[in-house]
């Protein structure tokens, strides 16, 4: 409990909230590398996942890649990359991308594959081409699951992005590494609390985004007030 109070004292010390090593700077750095890693993973994995979900081919490949990538210890990979690429952000960024890809891939693939084939079949039968089916039918209907994949990836990356401080003076991980080195456990705990708060915040944002996507894009029928003037669920004679 004492340590916890020390951490709170550390957090409320105005000296820690200014300058290049201050909390706001570190939080922004942490968010920046999280955002960069998830964006890169999305660019790589979203098209692949959507394509696999659409063609229903290569599902085994997804399983293999996701399984293998999940089994890679991120710290080990970072050490390896760090040795190869040296000090800087390149190594942690790549490691975080590897960490994020499986979740994004699985979300995109599962979301698109689970779209009812009766709906995509009908879209094809009335004359949508494959591209239109993907962009106008499958992706909108898969949006909540797809965002779910991004949400899982973001959560993993934001927690693991502390490792960026392993090879660079970057992000909230810095408090963990420097606190460990100087046995300043208050600083360490404060850093950990900041990471946890950030993860929680992003989680809440994504949960809201997912709900919004479900309501507005995938299943607007269940949105309240979809039929503004008259009540939508009233059954009328045909």
């Amino acid at each position, binding site marked *: 409990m004492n340590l916890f109070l020390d951490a709170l004292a550390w957090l409320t010390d105005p000296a820690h909230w200014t300058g290049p090593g201050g909390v706001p700077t570190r939080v922004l750095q942490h968010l920046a590398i999280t955002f960069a890693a998830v964006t890169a993973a999305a660019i790589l994995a979203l098209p692949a996942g959507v394509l696999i979900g659409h063609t229903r081919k290569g599902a085994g490949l997804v399983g293999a890649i996701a399984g293998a990538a999940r089994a890679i210890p991120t710290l080990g990979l970072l050490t390896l990359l760090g040795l190869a690429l040296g000090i800087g952000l390149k190594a942690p960024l790549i490691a975080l991308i590897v960490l994020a890809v499986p979740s994004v891939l699985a979300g995109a693939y599962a979301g698109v594959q689970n779209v009812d084939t009766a709906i995509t079949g*009908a879209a*094809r039968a009335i004359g949508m081409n494959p591209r239109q089916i993907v962009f106008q039918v499958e992706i909108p209907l898969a949006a909540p699951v797809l965002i779910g994949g991004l949400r899982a990836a973001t959560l993993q990356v934001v927690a693991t992005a502390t490792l960026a401080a392993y090879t660079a003076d970057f992000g909230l991980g810095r408090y963990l590494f420097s606190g460990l080195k100087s046995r300043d456990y208050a600083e360490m705990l404060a850093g950990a609390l900041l990471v946890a708060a950030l993860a929680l915040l992003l989680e809440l944002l994504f949960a809201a985004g997912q709900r919004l996507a479900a309501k507005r894009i995938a299943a607007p029928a269940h949105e309240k007030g979809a039929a503004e003037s008259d009540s939508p669920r009233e059954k009328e004679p*045909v």
Partner: protein
Amino acid sequence: MIEFETVSKTYPGQSVAVADFSLVVPSHRTVVLVGSSGSGKSTLLRTVNRMVEPTSGRVLIDDEDVRERDPVALRRSIGYVLQHGGLLPHRSVLDNIATVPVLKGTPKRRARTAASELLERVGLDPKIGRRYPGQLSGGQQQRVGVARALAADPNILLMDEPFGAVDPIMRRELQEELLRLQAELHKTIVFVTHDIDEAFLLGDEVVVLREGGVIAQRGTPAEILGAPADDFVRDFVGADRAERELHITTVDGRSIAVDGTGRPVGVLAP
């Protein structure tokens, strides 16, 4: 005019779905393919818009092989109604109806206005255009499905058991609505069903199919009911069923039609 020329379809690893099927569907007529499951009736329907490619044989629309046509353009030129409506759940009713015209390049606004008019045409309140398919009853969804099929003003309508999933009273209403529409629009309709009464009600011509797309009999409803070609057809149309055997009895000077069980079913018009 739609022509099936010795169309066969074998699905890989399965028995023959359709073998050597030939049929001419004249323009502006309703031809009903009727058969139980396994008769290949849906497969045949889907060869017309290239949702299914025949293993051998050809399908011609106005003397042109459908294989010469781009499948996407072909499908946009043919109205298609499915059993469960096949509406896009994330689009409003109006946008669902406007789908094909918009794909073909009609400005969205004009397509929506036309869609709203089509809603009235199929007997729906245009107000429901803002709703989503999930908010409609099964019967309403089917009507929207018909409106969507008509939106691009196609010459041909393909209807794959469109009223199979709605309750009998609703089905009857939808059938009558279709007859009314067809009297105005004169489309070339290929209609698939397993319900012989529906076939007799809607078809100018009825094609009774046995397993594997073999034609058991084709003709007008009266021809088939009056002279079933064989026991299969007799059984299928229920020619021996008591309610098909009508007799006339005279009660108080009026001619009453009575079925085989002695139940009165109607009065002969004077």
